[in-house]
C-alpha cells in the first residue's frame, strides 16, 4: 500500500547532517522509546471519569499491548490495571512516562524518573514556560532532572503522542486511530493539530506516528524530523509549526530527507513582526517569514498555507504516485467549473496543455458533437453517459503522453451518482495497477447529500479536494515538489 508515492533512496554525500546523525544516534533511540515503548507509566492515572488522568488511562488501555504501570498514590488499580503509589515502586524499566499531574509536582517526578533510568517522558501538564517566570523556573528545574540521565522530554504543555500502528494513544484525543497508516505528523499546536489530524481521518487518511511537542523544552524539531526521515513506517511527513528552533540543523536534515520522502509544513505567525528597525535596505524589506520561506524552498519542504491545505497535500502525496511533470488534464461536465480550474491551475504553476490531435479525435468520437474534446474535456451534462465517459476519458488520459496529472471534476449530479464515483475509482486503480504511474485527484463540487459518495473514492485512495481553488493549490504544491526532485536529479516515482 505504501510503495506508490515513494522515492528512491539516494546516497548522500558526507554532509553536516550525516555527522549530526552520529551525534544523535542516542537521541534517535530515545525518540524511539517514545513511539515504541515496551512499557508506559501513567503518572497521575485516575479512575474518576472526566479527569485528565482517566482520559489518558482509558486511551492507553484501549489499544496498547505493552506493559502499563498506572501511578496513583491512593488506588490499587486504574481501568483494570495495577496501580503503584509512586515511580520508585514500579518493578520494571520504564520506556515512556506520561505525566498528567499538576505542574509543581512534575519536577520531583522527573527526578524520580531520572533515578530509575526512564528513557522518555511526555509531559502533558501546562503551566510551565508558557505561563510566565514561575512556570519557566519549574520547566528549568524539570529539565535539569531530565538531562541528568538524558530522558527525552516531549512537552510540557502538550497534547501527547500516538503510534497508531501499535495502538498506542498517549494523548488526550478521543479514540485510537486505525492501523496501517504511513503519514507522520509533528504539531506544535495541540488542539489545532488534533483538529487537523481528526479532519484528515474523516477523509480516510491513516497515520503512523503523531507528536504534539508543545513547549519543546527537551526536543527539537529537527530531531523529530530526522527520526521520521529514518522511520520505515513513515512515507509522508507533516509539520504544523509556530516556530522552528535550531534552524540550521532543521534545514540540513530536511534537505536530505526530502530527496527520499516528502515533507509538508504549515508555518503560522507569518505576518507579525515584519517591521523592525533596520539599518539596511535588505533588512527593511525582509519579513519574519522570509527566512522560513527560503529554508523551505532550499530544502524541498512543501509549504502549505493552512491546516486544510496541509491535509490535502498530504493526502495527494500519500495515496497517489508523484506526478512526473506539471501538465494537467481536466475532465468535466461543467464548462464553467473547468475554466475556473484552468485559471487556478495556471496561477499555481501548472500547465493545462492542448491535447494532441489523435487524443482529441478519440475523445470527440465518444462525446456529443457540441461537447469539447479539448483540455478541459467537457462532456456536458449527459448524465446517462457519465459512467462510460468518465471511465473512458480517464483511461485515454492515462494512456496519453500529453498530461502528467488527471483531474476529473465531479460536479453536482456526477457526484450524486454513486456509480460514477465507483467508476472513477475503479478506472484509476485499474490504470495504476497496470503500471501507468500517474496521479488522479478529484475536484469535488457538490452538495452535502453527495458526501457519502466521496467515501467511495477516498476509501479507494482517490483524493477528493473541495472546489477548484483548493484542488489547484494542492496539486500545484505537489507538482512543485516534483520539480524540486527533478532539478536535483531524482526521478519522481523512479523506483519499482
Amino acid at each position, binding site marked *: 500500500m505504501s510503495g506508490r508515492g515513494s522515492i528512491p533512496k539516494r546516497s548522500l554525500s558526507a554532509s553536516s547532517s550525516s555527522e549530526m546523525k552520529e551525534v544523535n544516534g542516542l537521541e534517535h533511540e530515545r525518540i524511539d522509546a517514545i513511539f515504541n515503548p515496551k512499557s508506559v507509566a501513567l503518572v497521575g492515572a485516575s479512575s474518576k471519569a472526566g479527569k485528565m488522568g482517566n482520559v489518558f488511562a482509558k486511551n492507553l488501555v484501549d489499544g496498547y499491548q505493552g506493559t502499563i504501570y498506572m501511578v496513583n498514590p491512593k488506588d490499587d488499580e486504574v481501568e483494570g490495571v495495577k496501580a503503584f503509589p509512586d515511580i520508585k515502586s514500579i518493578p520494571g524499566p520504564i520506556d515512556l512516562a506520561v505525566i498528567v499531574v499538576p505542574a509543581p509536582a512534575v519536577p520531583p517526578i522527573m527526578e524520580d524518573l531520572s533515578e530509575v533510568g526512564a528513557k522518555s517522558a511526555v509531559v502533558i501538564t501546562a503551566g510551565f514556560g508558557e505561563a510566565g517566570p514561575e512556570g519557566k523556573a519549574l520547566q528549568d528545574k524539570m529539565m535539569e532532572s531530565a538531562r541528568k540521565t538524558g530522558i527525552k522530554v516531549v512537552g510540557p504543555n502538550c497534547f501527547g503522542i500516538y503510534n497508531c500502528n501499535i495502538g498506542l494513544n498517549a494523548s488526550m484525543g478521543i479514540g485510537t486511530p486505525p492501523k496501517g497508516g504511513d503519514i507522520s505528523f509533528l504539531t506544535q499546536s495541540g488542539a489545532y493539530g488534533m483538529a487537523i489530524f481528526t479532519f484528515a481521518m474523516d477523509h480516510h487518511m491513516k497515520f503512523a506516528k503523531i507528536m504534539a511537542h508543545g513547549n519543546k523544552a527537551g526536543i527539537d524539531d529537527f530531531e523529530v524530523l530526522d527520526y521520521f526521515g529514518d522511520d520505515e513506517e513513515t512515507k509522508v511527513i507533516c509539520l504544523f509549526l509556530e*516556530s*522552528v*528552533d*535550531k*534552524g*540550521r540543523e*532543521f*534545514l540540513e536534515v530536511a534537505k536530505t530527507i526530502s530527496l527520499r520522502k516528502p515533507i509538508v509544513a504549515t508555518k503560522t505567525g507569518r505576518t507579525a513582526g515584519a517591521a523592525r528597525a*533596520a*539599518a*539596511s*535596505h*535588505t*533588512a527593511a*524589506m*525582509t519579513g519574519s517569514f*522570509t*527566512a*522560513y*520561506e*527560503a*529554508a523551505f*524552498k*532550499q530544502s524541498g519542504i512543501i509549504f502549505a498555507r493552512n491546516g486544510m491545505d496541509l491535509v490535502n497535500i498530504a493526502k495527494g502525496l500519500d495515496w497517489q504516485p508523484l506526478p512526473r511533470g506539471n501538465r494537467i488534464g481536466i475532465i468535466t461536465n461543467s464548462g464553467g467549473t473547468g475554466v475556473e480550474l484552468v485559471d487556478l491551475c495556471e496561477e499555481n504553476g501548472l500547465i493545462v496543455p492542448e491535447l494532441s490531435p489523435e487524443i482529441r479525435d478519440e475523445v470527440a468520437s465518444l462525446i456529443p458533437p457540441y461537447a469539447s474534446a479539448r483540455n478541459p474535456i467537457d462532456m456536458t451534462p449527459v448524465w446517462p453517459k457519465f459512467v462510460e465517459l468518465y471511465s473512458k476519458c480517464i483511461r485515454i488520459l492515462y494512456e496519453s503522453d500529453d498530461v502528467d496529472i488527471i483531474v476529473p471534476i465531479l460536479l453536482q449530479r456526477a457526484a450524486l451518482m454513486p456509480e460514477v464515483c465507483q467508476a472513477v475509482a475503479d478506472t484509476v486503480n485499474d490504470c495504476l495497477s497496470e503500471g501507468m504511474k500517474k496521479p488522479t485527484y478529484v475536484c469535488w463540487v457538490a452538495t452535502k447529500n453527495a458526501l457519502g459518495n466521496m467515501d467511495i473514492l477516498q476509501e479507494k485512495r482517490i483524493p477528493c479536494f473541495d472546489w477548484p481553488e483548493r484542488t489547484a493549490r494542492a496539486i500545484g504544491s505537489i507538482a512543485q515538489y516534483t520539480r524540486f526532485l527533478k*532539478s*536535483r536529479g531524482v526521478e519522481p516515482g523512479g523506483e519499482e
Partner: protein
Amino acid sequence: MSKATEIITKAKNEGRTFVTEPEAYAILEEYGVKVAPWALCDSAKTAVEEADRIGYPVVMKVVSPQIVHKTEFGAVKVNISSPQKVEEAYFQLMGSALDHEGVEVTGILVSKMLKGLEIIVGSTRDPQFGPLLMFGLGGVFVEVFKDVSYRIAPLEEIDVDEMLSELKGNKLIHGFRGMEGVNIEDLKRVLISISTLLTDLQDIAEMDLNPIFGNSTGVRVADARIILG
C-alpha cells in the same frame, strides 16, 4: 587572521557598528568579489590623479566612521566627468562633511562610474537560520517591484540557479530585446562568494551591495554597506 576578520575586529574595537566603504571593498575583494576601480584620496590633487587613472566619469563619496547613510548625508556625488569637477566635488564633499559636528573624514573615495544592469545583493541574519541572502534587480526594480529572491547561506549552485529563475527580471539579466545581458557565470560565482563570506564572517549582521553593475564582462560592486552585530 584573515584580512576581513582583521578589518571587522578593528571596527568593533573602535566601537563602530559598521565598516567604512573602503573596508567593505577590501573584505569583498578578499572573497573574490570585484569592486568598481577605486581609490581613497586625502587631497584634491590625489583625487584628480586617481580619477585620471580610473577614467571618467567617476563617483565620489565621503568616507567617515560616523557616516553609514551616505546619500542622506549628502556625502555622494555621481557622474563627475572632468578633473576640474573632481576638484570641485572634493572640496564640496569635504566642506559639507566637516560642517557636521563630530564627523571625522577618513578621506574621499573616488571610484569608476559603471554601466550595466543594476543588481542588488543583501543580507540579514535570521536568529534561527543564520545568514539570509537576498538577490534581485536593483534600482527601481527593487524599490518598486521588490523583485528579489531569498536563500539561506551557504548557497549551493542549484540554489543560485533557482534564485535566478525566480526573478521576474531574469529575462533582463539574460539580455532582453537587444539589451546587453549580464555575464551569468560571473554573477553566479559572485553570489556563491558572497554566500561564503556571510557564512565565514558571523559578525556581519546586515549587508547591502547596491548597486552591483552587471554587463557582459562581469559584475562589479559599486556601493557597499556592511553593518556589524
